[in-house]
């Protein structure tokens, strides 16, 4: 009975891994195919494939981790068995006042850096990238330390963070279309065109 159950779990995980590999393969195939233009369609396809790959790969990876097949190289020596001791370890790490003040200082520092950057003569694209990068770091600091997500269970983190990232990326897929819209504008304002036609 136990063997049958274990075999079932292994087979299901293998199927999921295969599906993850397939999704990854489609994404890679799209990037290297001749029709790749880095437009909205390609962005959509690649992102959705990567999302599916992540989705399919998560259960087998978690299973492998739970069974000791995968080890976190950054984990501390005292890896506790079961959740109770883990939480004790986390409590000891989580949310000391001094740590929170450091995070607050880092957030203020990053804000000053952003304001300073806004007055530098940096190309707009580069500025947007750096500003967004700094903002993502700030958001991560707030979520991890102030909102205490770093000290929650992995299942909660895995439910919240990837979902949000994927959904926001799906919104952002529409964004490159704005460049096309700008190019579609008539070179002269419509009013003058109409006046010419009337004249």
């Amino acid at each position: 009975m136990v063997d049958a159950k274990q075999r079932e779990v292994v087979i299901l995980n293998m199927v999921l891994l295969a599906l993850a590999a397939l999704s990854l393969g489609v994404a890679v195939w799209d990037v290297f195919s001749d029709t790749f233009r880095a437009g909205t369609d390609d962005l959509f396809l690649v992102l959705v494939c990567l999302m599916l790959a992540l989705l399919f790969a998560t259960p087998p990876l978690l299973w492998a981790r739970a069974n000791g097949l995968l080890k976190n190289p950054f984990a501390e020596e005292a890896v506790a068995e079961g959740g109770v001791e883990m939480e004790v370890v986390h409590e000891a790490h989580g949310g000391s006042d001094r740590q929170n003040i450091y995070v607050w200082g880092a957030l203020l520092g990053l804000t000053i850096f952003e304001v300073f950057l806004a007055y530098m003569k940096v190309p707009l694209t580069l500025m947007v990238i750096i500003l967004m990068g700094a903002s993502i770091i700030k958001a991560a600091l707030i979520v991890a330390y102030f909102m205490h997500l770093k000290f929650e269970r992995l299942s909660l983190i895995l439910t919240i963070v990837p979902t949000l990232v994927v959904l926001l990326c799906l919104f952002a897929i529409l964004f490159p279309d704005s460049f096309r819209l700008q190019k579609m504008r008539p070179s002269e304002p419509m009013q003058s065109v109409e006046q010419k036609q009337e004249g």
Partner: protein
Amino acid sequence: MAEARAEGVMPNDWSGGALPYRVGHRKLGMWLFIMSDSLTFGALLVTYSYARVASVNWPTPFPFRPSIIFSTAMTFVLLSSSLTMVFAVSASKRQKRATARKWIAATMVLGLTFIVLHLMEWNHLIGEGLAPFELPEEWAKAFPGASPLFGSAFFGITGLHMFHVFTGVCYLGVIAARIKKLNDDVEVAGLYWHFVDLVWMFVFPLIYLLSVDYSGVLAK
């Protein structure tokens, strides 16, 4: 759970009878709300970026004084309010209700300061002639062909954020008043407050810092 372990099967949080996330229903509910609300702001900010890039010209009218000074001060105020909220949560976890209430009050004062500063900034811009679908005459001259959507993007996004701050101040007021009856509610309210702070971390650079009049077109 114990049976599952004895059988050698992976202990499964999802097979029922357990709290898979090890958080209470209030906290989980707040996280779900935060996820949906961040999509609201995400949609607004993507739409704003879309409109901005697709426009022939997008005004960059904010002078260092007062707009950037004000918005930077607002950022500092909001970040500090997050820190006071963290202290409130940690005090409530240590069952120090009076201390928690004081820190919540400090958070509310900082939140109100944010709203007052923001309204002063709005008042200044409205005084210049900015409206949801109309640019001030000076701006229209300085930025030929500038999109009048600037006003709607500015007031829409910062207005919705300000509304969140206002709601947060009311929410914290209720939590502080009922702190004797409730337990993990301070932490849940803290999640909401930090989220409001987090949203501003994207609104501030996208709306203010990318609209800085660093060439001084309007000042001339």
